[in-house]
């Protein structure tokens, strides 16, 4: 039977261990990012490696982005119309659909889907490479895995995210247009005119682009780090894949709140 004092000391010890592990991991992920940056110039000299990754990270994610974007836009059109028609202002449907997609939903939902579709694949791939000692094998052949494997994947994710987010928003706006104008009878001219009037190029459009660039950076970084930092067992790879999606999604959502709070002008 342990005394209460011992119990407290044990609890404190566990807490301390956890905290050290946590900060240890953050430090390692920062070093990991630093090594990626160091290897980026070498990756740029081998564009073929980046193309390959652009295909598996970007092209293969397009379908899910197209379908999700169309449906999100259609729901926005339907829901927005139902609310706005009560105030006789269904002509501002374009404003609502455009602002929501360009500012918030486009970058965020794309980043969540990206973390689920592309991020998990990256983590599993790297995790399995580590488990089967492929990184050590490369190093023995004097091939730097950062230059050869990790940096091209990072660049591909970083490039793909803003493009995917733009596709998502564009498809979503046409989805909203289809439901609002073609099905529910909102005026065609009013839809676009109201949207153009209220969506500002610098404040809203560029804000969305910056957000998607930030999310692409963070989601790819987390996915690659989780894969590289895997405990080299089958169970470890599974856990790393799950963690990659969870951590990337939560980080994106929290970061989105911070970015919105920082950029939303309250004059």
């Amino acid at each position, binding site marked *: 039977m342990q005394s209460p004092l011992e119990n407290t000391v044990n609890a404190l010890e566990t807490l301390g261990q956890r905290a050290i592990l946590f900060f240890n991991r953050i430090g390692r992920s920062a070093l990991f990012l630093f090594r990626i940056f160091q290897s980026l110039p070498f990756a740029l000299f081998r564009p*073929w490696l980046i*193309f*390959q990754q*652009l*295909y598996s990270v*970007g*092209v293969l994610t*397009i379908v899910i982005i197209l379908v999700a974007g169309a449906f999100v836009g259609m729901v926005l059109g339907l829901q927005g119309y139902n609310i706005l028609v009560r105030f006789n202002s269904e002509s501002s449907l374009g404003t609502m659909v*455009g602002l929501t997609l*360009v500012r918030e939903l486009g970058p965020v939902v794309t980043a969540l889907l990206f973390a689920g579709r592309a991020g998990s694949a990256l983590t599993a791939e790297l995790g399995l490479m580590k488990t089967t000692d492929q990184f050590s094998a490369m190093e023995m052949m004097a091939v730097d895995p950062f230059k050869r494997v990790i940096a091209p994947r990072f660049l591909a994710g970083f490039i*793909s995210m*803003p*493009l*995917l987010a*733009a*596709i998502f*928003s*564009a*498809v979503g*706006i046409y989805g909203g247009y289809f439901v609002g104008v073609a099905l529910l009878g909102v005026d065609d001219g009013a839809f*676009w005119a109201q*949207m*153009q*009037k209220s*969506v*500002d*190029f610098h404040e*809203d*459009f560029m804000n*969305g*682009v910056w957000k998607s660039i930030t999310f692409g950076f963070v989601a790819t970084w987390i996915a690659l780090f989780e894969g590289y930092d895997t405990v080299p067992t089958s169970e470890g790879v599974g856990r790393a894949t799950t963690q990659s999606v969870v951590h990337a999604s939560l980080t994106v959502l929290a970061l989105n709140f911070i970015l919105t709070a920082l950029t939303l002008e309250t*004059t």
Partner: protein
Amino acid sequence: MTRHTLEIWVGIFVAAGIAALFMLAMKVSNLSTVTTGDTYNVTARFDNIGGLSVRSPVKASGVLVGRVSNVAYDDKTYSAIVTLSIQQQFNQFPKDSRASIYTAGLLGEQYIELSPGAEDDYLKDGDRLMMADSAMILEQMIGRIIADKISE
């Protein structure tokens, strides 16, 4: 998959992404309607600007001719000084034009309406509009009506 088809797919992806960005910039945002051309600044003094703020529209006969670029408070005269940036292509407003703050719709955004005067000289950069009507504040008007009713 051969190297060739993979490259085609990546090309399609990048082209679609750039096309989407372009579509969002031109068709959804106001980039196509923003004129980045030269502007000239004139100031106007208002007793009360209501909800007017930087980037509020400046209109003439309802057409957008410029935007509010600055709002300042002058504590010597206890009034607001509003700087209007008007596009250079509309440089033929008479010197005695009048600036009035109106509201679009009952509860809409506030904007400045320029009504041309009759003088032969035109406004130029740095001029001050002599005639300026303050914003209509709904509460003040209601208060006045009630006060009138009571005094009757």
